[in-house]
């Protein structure tokens, strides 16, 4: 049951995509919440609205120094249009660093602002659509250190993106402050014979989700001795008690047979006596008891 609940929880998390425009509201941060997976969903329907917040798209980070536990980080999404082109800045993620419950830091309140596509980028994107080529993005693997180890790259066939505008769906898998992987794609399905279609609006409609690690589920009955999880009720144990029938059926069936046999025999006795008295079948009456009994059984 718990397993099912857990599964439901996960599925609802990933299935539900709020399209509510979330501004800088403070109660969204799940303060002190120890949720195994923190999914922050937000969408920025039109980038120009937010683009004034962070204008310089440089691969740098800013930390507001107001408090240790609640500092801001910024990292840049870069994209490449086609094979030959280099990666260039395409948008900025902002998030808050927070100390997590089990030590280390995690990100919360992720916000994303997309830069406008420039004219050359639009041209390049059109070319991608025509060639059915890949649109590639990348993020630094370490959000605190943009020039860090490596970039996580993701790509999608450009033709998957256009709907009304350009729909994108970004899932960022995190491990502490490191970005493990980014899943990038269209918001919905991408039909297989990809048709060439140009968007009516050349702006991105972004949905972002931040994902942390899930703890593997284990049925609590057995994990109490390993994980220290208490379960008070003994509901988990009682159902193991089998019913009387389930326990003793192997004795009961032979017993039933014996009883049935005895009953049959008992019923035969009077019948035999009756037939003996009537004398309707002398040759059988003369015969021994067992034979008579057999005959009776056969008649049945």
């Amino acid at each position, binding site marked *: 049951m718990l397993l099912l609940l857990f599964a439901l929880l996960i599925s609802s998390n990933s299935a539900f995509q709020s399209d509510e425009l979330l501004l800088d509201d403070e109660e969204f941060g799940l303060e002190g919440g120890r949720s195994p997976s923190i999914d922050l969903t937000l969408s920025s329907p039109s980038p120009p609205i937010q683009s004034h917040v962070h204008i310089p798209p440089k691969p740098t980070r800013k930390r507001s120094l107001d408090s240790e536990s609640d500092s801001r980080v910024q990292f840049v999404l870069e994209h490449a249009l086609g094979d030959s082109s280099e990666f260039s800045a395409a948008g900025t993620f902002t998030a808050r660093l927070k100390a997590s419950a089990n030590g280390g830091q995690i990100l919360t309140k992720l916000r994303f602002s997309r830069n406008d596509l420039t004219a050359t980028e639009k041209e390049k994107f059109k070319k991608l659509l025509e060639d059915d080529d890949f649109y590639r993005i990348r993020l630094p693997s*370490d959000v605190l250190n943009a020039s860090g180890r490596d970039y996580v*790259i*993701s790509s999608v066939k450009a033709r998957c993106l256009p709907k009304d505008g350009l729909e994108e769906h970004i899932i960022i898998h995190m491990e502490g402050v490191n970005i*493990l992987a980014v899943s990038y*794609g269209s918001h919905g399905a991408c039909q297989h014979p990809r048709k060439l279609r140009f968007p009516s609006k050349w702006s991105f409609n972004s949905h972002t989700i931040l994902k942390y690690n899930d703890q*593997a589920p284990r*049925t609590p009955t057995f994990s109490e001795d390993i994980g220290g999880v208490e379960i008070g009720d003994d509901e988990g144990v009682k159902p*193991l008690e089998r019913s009387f029938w389930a326990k003793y059926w192997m004795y009961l069936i032979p017993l039933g047979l014996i009883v049935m046999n005895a009953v049959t025999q008992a019923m035969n006795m009077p019948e035999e006596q009756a037939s003996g008295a009537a004398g309707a079948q002398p040759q059988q009456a003369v015969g021994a008891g067992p034979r008579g009994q057999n005959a009776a059984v056969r008649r049945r």
Partner: protein
Amino acid sequence: MIYCSNHDPPAPLFFLYSSQRNPATDLEQPKSNLIAMAMAIKLSLLLLFFLSSLIPTFSLFEDQVGFMDWHQRYIGKVKHAVFHTQKAGRKRVVVSTEENVIASLDLRRGEIFWRHVLGSNDVVDKIDIALGKYVITLSSEGSILRAWNLPDGQMVWESFLSGSKSSKALLTVPANLKVDLDSPIFVYGGACLYAISSIDGEILWKKDFTAEGIDVHQLLLPDGSDVVHAVGVTDLSQFDTYEINVRNGGLLKHASASFPGGISGEILPISSDKFVALDARSSILVLISMKEGQIDLQQTHVSDLIHGSSGNTVILPSKLSGIFSISTDTFIAFIKVTNEGKLDVMQKVDKMVVVSDALSLSEGEQAFALVQHGDSKIHLSVRLVHDMSSNHLKETVKMDHERGYVHKIFINNYVRTDRSHGFRALIVMEDHSLLLLQQGEIVWSRDDGLASVIAVTTSELPVEKLGVSVSKVERSLFEWLKGHMLKLKGTLMLATPDEVAAIQKIRLQSSEKSKMTRDHNGFRRLLIVLTRAGKLFALHTGDGRVVWSSLLQSLRKSDQCTDPTGLKLHQWQIPHHHALDNNPSVLVVGRCGLSLSASSAMSIVDAYTGKELHNMGPAHSTVQVISLPFSDSTEQQLHLLIDADKRAHLYPRTPEAAEIFQRESENVYWYSVEAEAGILRGYGVKSSCNLGVPNEYCFETRNLWSIVFPSESERIIATVTRKANEVVHTQAKVIADEDVMYKYVSKNILFVATVSPKASGPIGSATPDESLLVVHLVDTVTGRILHRMSHSGSQGPVHAVLSENWVVYHYFNLRAHKYEISVIEIYDQSRAENKDVLKLIVGKHNLTAPVSSYSRPEVTTRSQSYFFTHSVKAISVTSTAKGITSKHLLIGTIGDKVLALDKRFVDPRRSLNPTQAEKEEGLLPLTDALPIIPQSYITHAFKVEGLRGIETVPAKLESTTLVFAYGVDLFFTRLAPSRTYDSLTEDFNYALLLLTIVALVVAIFVTWVLSERKDLQDKWR
């Protein structure tokens, strides 16, 4: 007994199954995919549930062993051999091998008397025989010394020698040295010298050489003296000899002499007081002689000794007293050392000659053997040390081409009937086989290359054609009848023990199973295995015999290819429709050298004859081999070989293949795992290579995605994918309440397990708080992480198997101090709405829509963990032709056995108290641990020593799967995870069935006549 058996969706059939030897049963739960049908069979389900509360097993009766399984025992490439022929009733030789096996072999027939497989981390360094009854082995770099009883192989004693630093491992067993009624053994290991009692393995004394900084090369014990000489080198430039009292380990004498030239290689003893070594540049031979406690060095230029020699000089390790041998680029020279310390070249022989150690015949007489390779024969000559000029014995033995060159030789002498010396030689060949030569003949041979299988594939046998029946003429009718009478007797339990044995023999020898043609059920196949020696073997699945073997030219040592290793074995051509005239063939890919960037070697081998059809010499490097799901008009599979520069090379190199590939190249993706860096990368094909010369079979690739695991918290320890040829019967899974779940069936799922760096060591090296196991399911086309989950307090090693929509993996839980098996099943939510029958009929469903990896997957996962008692060496899963039959996990346990575990036991949907509907479905109540039922070991009484892998191949019969487990041993069997519901067993007694029918007919007539008569009587009354 009557059983109602399995019903599967395509044809729900019930039939009566009659046999009196049913090891209690199992009946599998149905996997119906049609909801409507679920209603119809509900009643029968109830019945099924009643029966399936019993646990499924594969138990086997004693007389069925060897009926459809075979087991072969091997030892591997022999490193050392010690003969023991005195006194013992049976003549035997004790060998140690590169697979870390110690075995005692019968000298007459080559059979294994006894054998011990030490683990892969317990490498055997030296073996010897002590006291004439113990086999002494030194292993693990001289830190473990064991004595085994020679006749039966029981361990007598074991000593752990804890050295302070790693060093050479040396073992000296003096022939006749007595110290206080004890015969000590001298061992040098871990920079310490030990004297160990050969009776009980107790350490008598220990002398530590750590402080001296000496690297001891030889331990010598001159006959009759009670002084051990340890000869070694300090700082590569100073010779040191230590004389040590055998009684108490006291240092008697120490002498040293420095040699500024430095030395390379080993110091070789010539006699008890003379040694020879080479200087660092391999140009000067240094003769070291000890006289009255002084070391005297004599230098001789190799070029002075052997005119025209050109570098690469090596002293061969053969110990020939008074002489030694050096090998140069072109030849081997035997050099005699005179008493005055002069070096004389005695003879030069060809470079391919292999030399044995010297063997003392009688006092002062010593002999050694030389083997020279000729054209399809080898020449063995035995020479006496004091008289090199003539051969004491010269024999020529015909030798199979496919065995390659001789690698090693060990000789032994015996007294002939005419009281002269006879010699027998044990030779190790290039293909790792072991042969015994005596009197110019091969007395026996062992294909021990099969102990190191690295890749397995299968091939169909040829179709039986009319008129050219391969099988023998059927036995006469009388024989046939006799056989059936015997069988009948057996079933009616009337047979005498002799007759039972006869029945068993008939059964095992049934020519049916070892025929060389394709059979209707697909049980007869060729197992094609590639061994570490670069030899390809074809084994018949019926009886395990070697049909052909071929030493691949491309994987032999040559000037272009100095260090060849086999890598992969793929099916190259699988004739089906248009190309039935061609024989199937396999592709072997190897690498010349140890580094990833070494050039690769390829061969295409005919699967029926073993002939090498093509042989592509050193080419580009190969990191990965990808078998593409396309084939050309001659049914040749397209393969992509990825080189170290991430270029893709297409094979076969035909314009047709290039055209097919160009057409499909847009949908070709692959990934690489950089385990050290912790990065997964995905690639796609871009354009043709630009290497100066136009090459239409080479393609540039581009990086499409990457996943970077943070090096401070995660390290990749295991990656597993689905088997490429796996068949999934149905996408839907009917669960309780007639609900349907859709499996997320994708060929592109990759399972990745990572652990925290601290926990990547052996179990126990990290605390539960430090260790974290994280498992990921990654889509290899887009690089999406479909599922990610962590097990805290757990660590590797992780063994996993991925099949259909589930992955099962095994790891260690540090908190519970137990091994665990976990399962993840992944389901597709986007198809979950297709439940309405009406919609299905109208066609408003998306079940037939093409699936694109670029669509955002809506998946949901279920998972559960169970404790498992054993640690595991390999995990595999059964596979059947259509994927209908339920699956069993095949778990290679630490005891080298293979356990079959029903997949139902690791169902994540198991709950503590399943509902009635779930029970009907066959869901088992949740338990803490997975049961290990002794009857479900498919290897029954056998052990597959050194188990490394388990391969499963579907037979044509849906219920059956062929299982091949390999390690040092080979084991093959046939499994029916849901019992053979689609055929009668082979030992089904048709005669008994006929007899029963006849008896019934007779009984009907008799009773009819009787009842007629009774009726008549009744009427007359």
